[in-house]
């Protein structure tokens, strides 16, 4: 049973460029959340996708956008990259509808380390 996978592992971009990060959820999961984690900080929620729609969004600008595909995999796109976008980007998957009975855990991928020069 594959866990959450993310690609690429590392990425180096320059300011103003655009980047796409990819995530495949744990088998059987249908909800994908994206987090940004700066060095020495806890993960910050970017947004969550369910049924191919953005369901919730954190305090991030419109430069951050995403998509969920019918197979539940997801992409995170960041436009007009800034130096401050350098961080570890984490994808987490969960199963909607299990709220009443589950331990309500999220399964995180290994992350994509983005460096903006």
């Amino acid at each position, binding site marked *: 049973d594959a866990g959450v996978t993310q690609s690429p592992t590392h990425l180096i971009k320059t300011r103003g460029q655009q980047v796409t990060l990819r995530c495949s959820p744990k088998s059987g999961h249908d909800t994908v*959340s994206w987090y940004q984690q700066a060095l*020495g900080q*806890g993960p910050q929620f970017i947004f969550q996708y369910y049924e191919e729609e953005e369901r919730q969004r954190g305090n991030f600008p419109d430069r951050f956008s995403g998509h969920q595909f019918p197979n539940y995999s997801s992409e995170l796109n960041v436009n007009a990259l800034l130096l401050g976008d350098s961080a570890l980007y984490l994808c987490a998957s969960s199963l*909607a509808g299990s709220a009443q009975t589950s*331990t309500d855990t*999220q399964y995180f991928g290994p*992350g994509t380390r983005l460096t903006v020069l």
Partner: protein
Amino acid sequence: SQKIEQNSEALNIQEGKTATLTCNYTNYSPAYLQWYRQDPGRGPVFLLLIRENEKEKRKERLKVTFDTTLKQSLFHITASQPADSATYLCAYRRGSGNTGKLIFGQGTTLQVKP
């Protein structure tokens, strides 16, 4: 605004001792708190969840307490080992059920010395 805070200073302890990490929250009353372990360059791994009506939860050498009066959760690792060295994050879910976003503290780094 809702905040969840952990001691940002690293915790250094000797092998075999009990490590105690603190998580405080303000301006919100979460139904439950979660604790995660994160190793460098890796994603967080879920450890324990404690609900507001539970005073204490245990899993092997781990113990979590939840004091809704103090708005605080304590995370204990007994008989600590060097392999326990990692960053530990507490989090609560803002929103209903499994749909809300997780709000994380900044994490506390634990270093267990042999």
